[in-house]
Structure formats: structure tokens, C-alpha cells
């Protein structure tokens, strides 16, 4: 089966400015989040995927086809850009109908399908109104309706949650979840991590035009074993455990915050031990030996950076050469 997305050494230059820098990846069908800060190259990458840009170097394939000027692919692709760009004077329903007709549907069939899609995105009450009267959230939903109306195999969304209120976000998330559950493919670009976390655990991290990491959250976490990480322990005998970690060269630094009603290293109170390490895996294994040997009581043990945001921050540090 062909990959959903195949990029081979893809570079895109705008004059002397790098938009995308030597990205290679193969993605099977599924749902992926494309994460990166503003200016990371997300839009350039999406433009390459929808065929609006040619790569300066390398090969782009989407659903096994080159995307540039490819009508066959355009029938299988739904795209929702980050900006609005809709005609203000026409109604949302007319606009979606028009774009469906551009897909080759007959007027009556296009109209029926457009009504169905507008209802699906919760726009049934406002679909006959001119787009000029729509709120930001309504426009986002109308944009999504045009992207899904022709039932594409692959849906590409650029910042679809932008401008949505919490209810709108929840509705959009539900809609996209059901899209994914129906076995359809999705690429969603955002710079807000929790938006993507709510939809998929597979993601691509991009910054400075480079692909920093790709895969599931777990796969990317594996990359971090040699990255400085922080381990937090709320335990008794915190001083002793910190000393062991430092003596064995598994900690770069350690700090202890005593519990409010306690003196450091009390045998009964639980202090907060923070260990900075470059060998998180090894440290974790060693702790499993030290804790019973020292008769320490652990109430809590976790990494300080277990969110996607901190993962992203760590990868960015590597990319910038700060680590």
C-alpha cells in the first residue's frame, strides 16, 4: 500500500530563505498533527502537500501521486487554510455548493450535499446568511464544511481551531474525531499542542523548516533518553537518594524542596527531590534499586516534562544547539 505522504529530501527555498529544509518522511494513512511555532514552515509544508508550491529540491508524493497540478489528487484532498478568504457577499451554503460543483457535482446534488455538510458542522441556522455576517467561529466551520464536502480521502487542516470559542472547539474536535474514527486520514497543523493531543497521538514536530521528530508520542519520547530531563520525586530520604544519583554520575544537578512542615531529609516527611539527568532511563532503573535499599517511601515520581509542550521544547533545544 502506498504511503499517504512521502517526502524525499524536500527543500523549499524562497529566494535565499529556507521554508522547508531537507525533510524526508513516509507517513502511512492515519491522523497526524503537524506542530511547530509560527514561522516553523508548517504552511510551506502544507502548500507543498497540496501542490501549490513546487519543492526546490526533492520529491513530494501525496496518496502516491505528485500533488502539483494533479486533478486526480485534488478529488481526494480536502484543504482548509488558516486564513478565511471567503466571498463575503454570498451565503455559506452557496459557497460550499459552488465549491462542490467545482468538484464536478451536478447543481442539485451539490446543493443537497452542501446542506448536509453545513448541518454537520452546526451551521444549519446560518447557512443561508451572507458570509459577511458570520462570526469567526462560523467561518471556521464553513471552511471545514467545504473541505469535507466532497468526502476526500485526506483532509489537511491549517490551524482549524483558530478563533473558535470553547464550545466551537469542542464541536470541531468531536467532528474531527468522528472523521478519524471513520478511517479517514487527517493532517492538522497547529502551534497549540493540546488541540492536537485531543485528536491524535501521532505527530510531526517542525521548526526552522526542519522536521525535528515524527511518530507517536511514545516514539518521540524514546528520542529523549539522552536529552536532559528532570525527574521529580516526592519521597523520604531525599538527600540520600540525591547523593546516590550524583555519586553514580546519573545526575547533573539535584535540588530538594522540603515539605512545608519539615526539615530536609527527615525520615518521615516527604520532600520534593528534583534531579536533572542526561540518563533518564538509567536513573529510573537505579532508583528502583536505591529506593527499597534505603527504605525510602515514595509518594510521587514523575518526569517534570511529560507534556507535549516540554517534549517540543526539548527538541527545539537540541535543534538550536543549546543541548
Amino acid at each position, binding site marked *: 500500500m502506498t504511503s499517504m505522504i512521502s517526502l524525499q529530501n524536500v527543500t523549499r527555498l*524562497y529566494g535565499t530563505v529556507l521554508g522547508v529544509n531537507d525533510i524526508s518522511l513516509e507517513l502511512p494513512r492515519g491522523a497526524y498533527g503537524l506542530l511547530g511555532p509560527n514561522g516553523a514552515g508548517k*504552511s*510551506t509544508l*502544507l*502548500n507543498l502537500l*497540496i*501542490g*501549490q*508550491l*513546487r519543492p526546490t529540491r526533492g520529491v513530494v508524493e501525496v496518496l502516491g501521486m505528485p500533488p502539483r*497540478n494533479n*486533478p*486526480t489528487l*485534488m*478529488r481526494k*484532498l*480536502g*484543504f482548509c*487554510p*488558516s*486564513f*478565511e*478568504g*471567503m*466571498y463575503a*457577499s*454570498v451565503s455559506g451554503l*452557496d459557497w460550499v455548493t*459552488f*465549491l462542490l*460543483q*467545482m*468538484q*464536478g*457535482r*451536478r*447543481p442539485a446534488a*451539490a446543493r443537497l450535499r452542501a446542506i448536509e455538510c453545513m448541518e454537520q458542522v452546526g451551521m444549519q441556522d446560518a447557512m443561508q446568511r451572507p458570509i459577511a455576517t458570520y462570526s469567526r467561529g462560523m467561518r471556521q466551520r464553513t471552511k471545514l464544511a*467545504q473541505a469535507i464536502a466532497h468526502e476526500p480521502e485526506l483532509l489537511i487542516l*491549517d490551524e482549524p481551531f483558530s478563533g473558535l470559542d470553547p464550545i466551537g472547539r469542542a464541536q470541531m474536535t468531536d467532528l474531527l474525531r468522528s472523521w478519524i474514527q471513520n478511517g479517514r486520514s487527517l493532517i492538522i497543523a497547529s502551534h497549540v499542542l493540546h488541540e492536537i493531543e485531543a485528536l491524535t497521538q501521532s505527530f510531526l514536530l517542525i521548526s526552522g523548516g526542519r522536521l525535528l521528530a515524527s511518530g507517536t508520542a511514545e516514539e518521540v519520547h524514546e528520542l529523549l533518553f539522552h536529552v536532559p530531563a528532570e525527574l521529580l520525586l516526592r519521597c523520604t530520604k531525599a538527600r540520600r537518594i540525591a547523593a546516590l544519583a550524583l555519586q553514580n554520575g546519573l545526575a547533573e544537578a539535584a535540588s530538594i524542596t522540603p515539605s512545608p512542615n519539615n526539615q530536609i531529609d527527615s525520615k518521615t516527611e516527604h520532600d520534593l527531590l528534583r534531579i536533572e539527568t542526561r540518563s533518564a532511563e538509567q536513573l529510573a532503573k537505579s532508583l528502583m534499586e536505591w529506593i527499597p535499599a534505603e527504605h525510602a517511601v515514595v509518594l510521587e515520581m514523575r518526569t517534570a516534562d511529560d507534556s507535549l509542550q516540554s517534549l517540543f521544547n526539548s527538541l527545539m533545544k537540541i535543534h538550536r544547539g543549546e543541548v
Partner: protein
Amino acid sequence: MNALLAVFRYEMRKSLTAGRVAWWFVLAAFPVTITLLSRWVQSNEGQIKLADRDSFWSVLLYVAVPCMCCAMSALLTAGPAIATELEQRSWIYVATRPHGIAWLLLGKFFVATAWAFTAAVAATSLSVLFVNAPAPYTLWSGILKLSGLAAPAYSATYLLLGAIFPRRSMVFCVMYTAGVEVLLGSFPAIINRITVQYRLRSLLTCWLPLSDDLRNSTALQYTVGSNSPASHILWLASITIGFILLAVLMTRLRQFTTATESDL
């Protein structure tokens, strides 16, 4: 074909704005106003000789309708066809449809032609009511035939210019009109044959009643062709189709992105 019809209907509806309709009235009213002014001058200064009336009204309506009304209407509609889509950032929705840009350009071409030709029909039909030509029907049908060729030819020309220069498309269209169609088209040299004006002027001498004096004048001898009307029609049809295809090709080659810093 569904897509083309959809674009035509949609663009037509979109273009039915107060401003656009006002422009249509202005363009249609221009030849009528010129006609009425000419009649008023004639009534004050004395009537033109009967033998010269056909020539006078033929040339006046030729300049006012196909050259001014059609060309201006096409310029206003077809010139910014691509620029407006890029400025509004609505381009991407059409560009991600199968052959979307080709249908869009073709649809916009037909819309521009429709606006230009209907203005020409209105202008000619009203103007002919006020002319004192001996053969008003010949004048009316001749001007409409010329307009029927001028409207698509100019629409295709301005569409192509808009595709080549999406930034400042109107400026380039005006520069083209003044520099190529007016100046070069009137230049008594072989180069004027590349212009739409040359072909229309040549057809003017075939289809409209002109006096022998005018036909044999030096000015016309060097600025009109002696080929058959069919060859001029074929030429105009060729440039119309050729320019549309070139405009489509240009947009396929160019890369307009969804980035904030658009290629526009």
C-alpha cells in the same frame, strides 16, 4: 462543464454589485452620450452631408462601442480577475479543485465577455435610435458584430495580462491599452497587425458603410488590412483562445501560496 457553469453563474452573481452595475451603465451610456452630443453639434453647426453620414456614424460608433465600451468593460472585469482572488485569498479554495484554476479563468473570461458585450448591445441599440444615418440597421448589426469579436478578444487579452502581472494588473492593462492598442495599433507599420485594433478596424471597412473618400484615405490604407473578413475573424478567434490558454498555462506555472507573504 459543471465546473465552468458553476464558475460562470457564481462569478456573475458575485459581480452583480452596485458598483459593477453602475460601471455597466456608465460604459453603456458613454456612446449614447457621444451620439447625442454629435447630434446636438450637428443641429447647431449644420448637418453632415448625406453621403458622409454613414461614414461619420460608423467611425464614431466604432470608436465608442467596440474600442471604448467593450475594451473598458473587459479591462475592468478581466484585468483584475486573478489579482482579486489572490488579494481576497479565495484563490486556494479553487486551486485545490480538479482543474480549478482553468475553470475559474474560463468562467471569469465568459463573465467579462458577457458584461462587455451586453454593455455594447445596450449602447449600440440606444445610440442607433438617435443617429441620422441612412442605414441604421446596417450600422447596428455591423457594430454589434464588431463588439461580438472585440469583447472576447479584449477579455482574453486582459485576462492574460492579469495572469502575467497579478500585482498591479490594472496598471499594466491600462499601459497595454494606451501603448499597444492605441499607439501601436494606429502606427502605420506592419507591427500594428499584432493588435486587436488592427483586426477590428479592418473588419470595420468590410462590414460598415464607409464613403469611398474615407476608404481611400492614406490613414486607413496603412492601418487596415486588405485580407478577407474570415482571416481577421480567424485571427481574433485565435488570439482569444491562445491568450486564454496562455493565461491558464501562466497560472499553472506560477506558485501562489497560502502563506501570509503571498506571491502577489
